[in-house]
């Protein structure tokens, strides 16, 4: 979903660039005059957000293929992308990437507006809220690992809140909280370490680093 949007946006931008420099072709005025067609004016930042959201989406698809011992316990690999975007481009871009990933991911898996969608949405929103505070922690002392752990705990808290208030209003789900909290701690740490590894050399792009890691 997001991948195709990205492509469209890029194509749109390219047409726009061409439209400014080249002279309009008289036989196809509608193609070479982007102002008259339905076209979103996208910025380089938009493209970047779309690209990062697509990476996050890919990780979501990947992790859905991994069998989980307990429904709901997932590594949350897409949060690595959110953490990197937060560190490099700020909270606004991170929120875009995270929420785009949630919506597009639900469209991919056919769970848009289903309970699973609201679970990931509440988790994403709450961890973004926590990240908004956590990013102001002194960077000398706190790195992406801390951000990741706080976000993972917030994620699980948001999900449990929705589960308790809406899906299973029974105190019995409290018995699962320690399991989810332990998973949040472990996966939060691992994701934070991966994000930190990607970030420690800022010059390399994400794709080249990806190949380095797989070697």
């Amino acid at each position: 979903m997001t991948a195709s949007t990205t492509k469209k946006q890029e194509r749109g931008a390219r047409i726009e660039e061409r439209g400014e420099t080249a002279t309009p072709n008289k036989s196809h005025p509608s193609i070479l005059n982007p102002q008259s067609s339905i076209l979103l004016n996208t910025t380089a930042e938009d493209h970047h957000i779309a690209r990062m959201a697509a990476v996050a989406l890919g990780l979501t698809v990947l992790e859905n293929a991994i069998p989980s011992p307990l429904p709901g316990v997932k590594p949350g690999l897409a949060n690595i992308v959110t953490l990197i975007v937060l560190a490099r481009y700020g909270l606004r871009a991170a929120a875009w990437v995270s929420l785009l990933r949630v919506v597009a991911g639900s469209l991919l898996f056919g769970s848009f507006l289903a309970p699973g969608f609201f679970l990931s949405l509440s988790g994403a929103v709450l961890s973004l809220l926590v990240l908004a505070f956590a990013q102001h922690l002194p960077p000398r002392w706190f790195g992406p690992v801390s951000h990741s752990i706080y976000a993972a705990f917030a994620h699980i808290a948001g999900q449990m809140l929705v589960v308790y208030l809406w899906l299973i209003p029974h105190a019995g789900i409290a018995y699962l909280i320690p399991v989810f909290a332990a998973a949040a701690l472990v996966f939060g740490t691992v994701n934070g370490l991966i994000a930190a590894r990607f970030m420690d050399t800022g010059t390399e792009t994400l794709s080249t680093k990806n190949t380095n890691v797989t070697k």
Partner: protein
Amino acid sequence: MSSHEFISAATLPHLKPGDWLTLLLGSICVVLLALRLWSGDLADKAVIRSGGKIFREVPLSHDQQIEVPGPLGVSVISIQNRKVRIASDPSPRQYCVRQGWLQQAGEIALCLPNQVSVELAGSRKKYDSLNY
């Protein structure tokens, strides 16, 4: 390079002092949550209330059925295998019946319309957010 060396080389440079603090806090949090939420001791008696007053306190040691009168009718509480449930109740939404079997101290089933409740009590009194 052994796997242990690889792991420490991959992790240690990325962990700042505050990250260790966060890890420690997170671990304490997980342990406290587990202790707090998994420490339910087995109950040994059921406290049945009707209209806010204690109707009966019954031990769970033998199976029985207890009929408790309320404003809407009779609620039937059944005790079986050291577990308690509300077997039937005249309340319209049947929340307390659908709650099923109660087993651990501190668990409670409330039939608010019929003003009947059954609470399990253990050897020691546990506090919760309602009576703390």
